[in-house]
């Protein structure tokens, strides 16, 4: 692909897949969570917010360790994996996705939560007085009004997942074609002093992430201008 050898191209492909799936999954998971955090009056909601933010603070080694247990035969991961005869979700692409989701979650939840909170109560009250059930009000009023926040969350989540290193290293097992993503491949290249390959991969990663983020930001600006 692109004239690059497969030990360079495959990690790139895996990384993009991982980041894309992580981002989409996060949008689905983080949006209801962010909605609840923005609107709930439960006394313990900031506790939940703190837990969600933990991955920012915890060192990847700690996070990776807990994930190993969670994904392994002693945890829920093992139970799920046993459905298809495997013992663990570690060393699988699915396991990587889960780890990536956990570690990128705070970057997605926060902007979406802020966007929902910024809407305030009024538009939803208006919707209610116009016969919109809470579900309809969410889809036709809250979500569209919060869409810039969702876009920001998606950009941040994607960028973070592309650059994710520590967690992937801890639970991936570095299996070529399955869990050897760009970060682990670069690590290998550095260890074997293949500087040129390491640079190519790392540099390419930076350029790609930059391009994605820039285009999303421009899109977001276009959105906002159209609305004003």
């Amino acid at each position: 692909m692109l004239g690059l050898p497969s030990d360079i191209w495959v990690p790139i492909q895996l990384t993009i897949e991982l980041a894309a799936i992580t981002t989409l999954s996060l949008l689905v998971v983080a949006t209801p969570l962010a909605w609840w955090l923005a609107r709930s009056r439960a006394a313990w909601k900031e506790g939940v917010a703190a837990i969600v933010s933990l991955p920012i603070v915890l060192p990847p080694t700690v996070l990776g360790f807990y994930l190993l247990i969670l994904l392994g035969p002693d945890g829920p991961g093992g139970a799920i994996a046993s459905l298809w005869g495997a013992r663990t979700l570690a060393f699988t692409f699915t396991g990587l996705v889960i780890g990536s989701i956990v570690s990128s979650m705070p970057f997605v939840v926060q902007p979406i939560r802020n966007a929902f909170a910024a809407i305030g109560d009024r538009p939803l009250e208006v919707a209610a007085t116009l016969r919109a059930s809470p579900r309809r009000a969410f889809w036709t009023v809250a979500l569209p009004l919060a869409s810039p926040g969702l876009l920001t969350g998606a950009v941040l989540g994607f960028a973070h997942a592309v650059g994710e290193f520590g967690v992937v290293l801890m639970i991936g097992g570095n299996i070529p074609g399955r869990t050897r993503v760009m970060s682990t491949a670069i690590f290998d290249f550095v260890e074997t002093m293949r500087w040129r390959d390491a640079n190519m991969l790392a540099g390419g990663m930076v350029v790609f992430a930059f391009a994605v983020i820039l285009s999303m930001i421009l899109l977001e600006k276009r959105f906002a201008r159209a609305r004003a």
Partner: protein
Amino acid sequence: MRLTALVAALGAFLASSAEAAQTHIAVAANFTEPAKEIAALFNQKTGHEAVLSFGASGAFFTQITHGAPFEVFLSADSERPKAAADGGFALADSLFTYAIGKLVLWSRVIDVTDGEAALKAGQFQKLSIANPVAAPYGTAAVEAMKALGLYDALQPKIVQGNSIAQAFQFVDTRNAEVGFVALSQLYGVTAGTRWEVPQTLYSPIRQDAVLLKTGADSEASKAFLEFLKGPEARAIIERFGYALN
């Protein structure tokens, strides 16, 4: 103001205590526990303080070649101390093997007391090793499997930890049913079953120590390396599961 003056005075006092000096030692992660015991004993016997830093030998090597202030390097392999000496960062004639790592097959899920048979039977989904690119134990594991003629059969099941510590973690959390770890890692561990891989199956994992350029004039550093060769240190090293020269 008063505080800085106090700290300065303290520093001067400590520095002037020429008798009890410090030496900064980079220690391969797998040698953590024995190193701590040896350092404590060293302090008792000589009054010098060995300040230990633990980590991956590869990372230490990179740091040392970029001017990190370590004075002694206890590596997990023999290549890096040699490379350091060749590069002029270490004194070649101080180089010696302080421990020989022993490769062990370990499992908390299946019985590997007869390791070769267990590997042949292949009744497991994942086999954990340290990344051969990064760790000598990983290279040794691959060597051993090849020597047994089982490498090709086992290769699809291999998962790599980026360090021997990680490889250990995969087996310890039972994500991998079996794995090649260092005997020293199993010190004090009673869980599971193990098989010491016969030395004939892999090249000895020599762990070499060397005096770095920065420590060339440090009495404490030289004293530490001497102590490391001595009987008390060797007893500790053996107890922790290493072989000796």
